């Protein structure tokens, strides 16, 4: 199938999911009440921000996961591998438990971003030979360290703060600031996508290993670091905005790659759109199933993603 046609199909699916995200929610609003007194119904406004956040977060995670899997040549690689989740969790928990959250709504996301980026830089600084394998190991180590420090913090905290931290970690696209969080993330996502489209050939070559890429004109070590840092930054920004959302960055790149082949120039945009669709649908599902109580979207994605992943796994075994 032509790349353009594939992209059109995914775009149509994303638009449909976005429309559903605005139409359906915890409450039923007739279309006539979408606009009240010349202004947008606040509930509709809320749904628009929320759906847009789900789309941007899902797309970022899918792109990030796609890059991680390609560069690390590991089908289990996911966006949070290089210390991002542990660092973000530690940053957010630190902000909440040390009382910095009193500085305002943005303090927790900013601390989370700071924690994620710091942990990520630590991984790159601590690993001398920055091959994919060693970065992966370094990332797991730093991530584990951050998680255990987080556990220590939680142990020393009051139960109410602890609930806040735990809920924050579970992930939600409900509390997103459109101007200060969503817009910058969307800009970063677009910039990253354009950069990756230009460099898609390098990503393809890196999937054959760094030496092969080097022998075909890619500065493999530099590109590995740039790509992993970019993918981690995308992940870090989404974590600071919506907490840790599992499976999206793992399952979506898999599905897209299996459906359309390996060429990253061809599958980058479909993967981004598929990620957006996946998270929008997971969010809608959560809202409709449980209208009052907020289900953590990370839980919904895992609940949906797990069987899909197992199905894919078994299908590939049967095929080979």
């Amino acid at each position, binding site marked *: 199938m032509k790349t353009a046609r594939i992209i059109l199909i995914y775009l149509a699916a994303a638009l449909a999911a976005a429309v559903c995200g605005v139409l359906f*929610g*915890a*409450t039923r609003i007739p279309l006539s009440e979408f606009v009240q007194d010349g202004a947008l119904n*606040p*509930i509709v*406004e*809320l*749904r628009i*921000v929320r759906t847009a956040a789900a789309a941007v977060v899902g797309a970022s995670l899918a792109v990030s996961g796609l890059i991680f899997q390609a560069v690390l040549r590991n089908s289990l690689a996911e966006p949070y591998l290089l210390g991002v989740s542990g660092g973000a969790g530690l940053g957010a928990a630190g902000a909440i438990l040390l*009382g910095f*959250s*009193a500085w*305002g*709504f*943005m303090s*927790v996301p900013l601390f989370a971003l700071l924690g994620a980026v710091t942990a990520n830089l630590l991984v790159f600084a601590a690993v001398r030979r920055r091959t994919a394998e060693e970065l992966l190991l370094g990332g797991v180590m730093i991530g584990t360290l951050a998680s255990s420090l987080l556990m220590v913090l939680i142990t020393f905290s*009051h*139960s*109410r703060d602890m*609930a*806040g931290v735990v*809920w*924050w970690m579970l992930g*939600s696209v*409900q*509390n*997103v*600031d*459109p*101007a*200060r969080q969503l817009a910058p993330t969307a800009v970063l996502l677009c910039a990253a996508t354009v950069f990756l489209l230009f460099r898609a050939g390098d990503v393809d070559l890196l999937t054959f290993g760094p030496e092969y890429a080097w022998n075909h004109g890619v500065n493999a070590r530099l590109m590995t670091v740039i790509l992993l840092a970019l993918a981690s930054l995308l992940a870090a920004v989404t974590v600071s905005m919506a907490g840790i959302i599992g499976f999206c960055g793992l399952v979506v790149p898999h599905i897209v790659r299996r459906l359309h082949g390996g060429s990253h120039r061809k599958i980058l945009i479909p993967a981004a759109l598929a990620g957006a669709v996946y998270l929008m649908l997971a969010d809608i599902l959560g*809202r409709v199933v449980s*209208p*009052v*109580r*907020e289900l*953590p979207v990370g839980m919904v994605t895992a609940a949906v993603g797990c069987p899909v992943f197992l199905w894919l796994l078994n299908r590939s075994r049967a095929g080979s």
Partner: protein
Amino acid sequence: MRRLFNLVLLLALLCLTACSDEHKSAPGGVVSLSPALTELICHLGQEKRLVARSTACDWPESVKKLPTAGDFAEPELERILAMKPALVVSNEFVNPKDADALRQAGIAVELHPCDGFNDYREWVILMGKLLDCPHEAENELKRTDGRIAGFEAEFNSSQKKTLRALYVIWDSPLLTAGADSLPDAVGRLAGLENIVKSEKGYPSISLEFVLKEDPDVIVWFAHDKDWKSNPSWSGIRAIREGRVLIPRDDSALLRPGPRIFDGIADLKSDLETMFADKETSGDAQP
């Protein structure tokens, strides 16, 4: 010889039962790992019996002089064993293994929930027995029933509408107090009706639900958090119109202890002031 031995044995047994009886009715030192129970013990005039508190116990001021024996519902076993108290009281969150360890060392442990007024009544009766002060306990029971009846009568006579309220425990994500929670019970006595009815405990709820329910007032327990900088909140009318009430002392309201009725009275008068202002300025109809 044998008869003598039997006699000694009998005496020893008697002694033991007597001792354990004495433990139950007139204990030695008491460790409280729950702020509400610490307040109750002091309120019953038994502060002298307390030998240690939890790090969360901060009222009355004088208990802060006591050594700590753990965090809220989290006993520090070694420290408590070294103190050799006769009784440890806390709520049911204590790890059962810790409780068993204390019991094995011969320390009585009483762990019961304390979430509402019925739980409070039971604690009062129990403390009356355990601390050997049934008279004080009876008075406190009478006071409790009197205050509750008073709030209810006051509300019925004022013929005011109930205000629909959202209790915010944590702002982002939005954690609230559901049906059957202490804030729910407390709010009801202050003339509030919780908008969250279908969920129990302390659930995280969707903002869309809040927008649809459009509460008259938001009671803000997320003490140092700020609602103004969170853009997701700006769609809520109560926020836009400034109907956010921060309890004067949320420890009095969220602790099922003897001060809770003063907390309710404060909440009630604060609500009346808030809505009297609104009515006179005419921009809100409760």
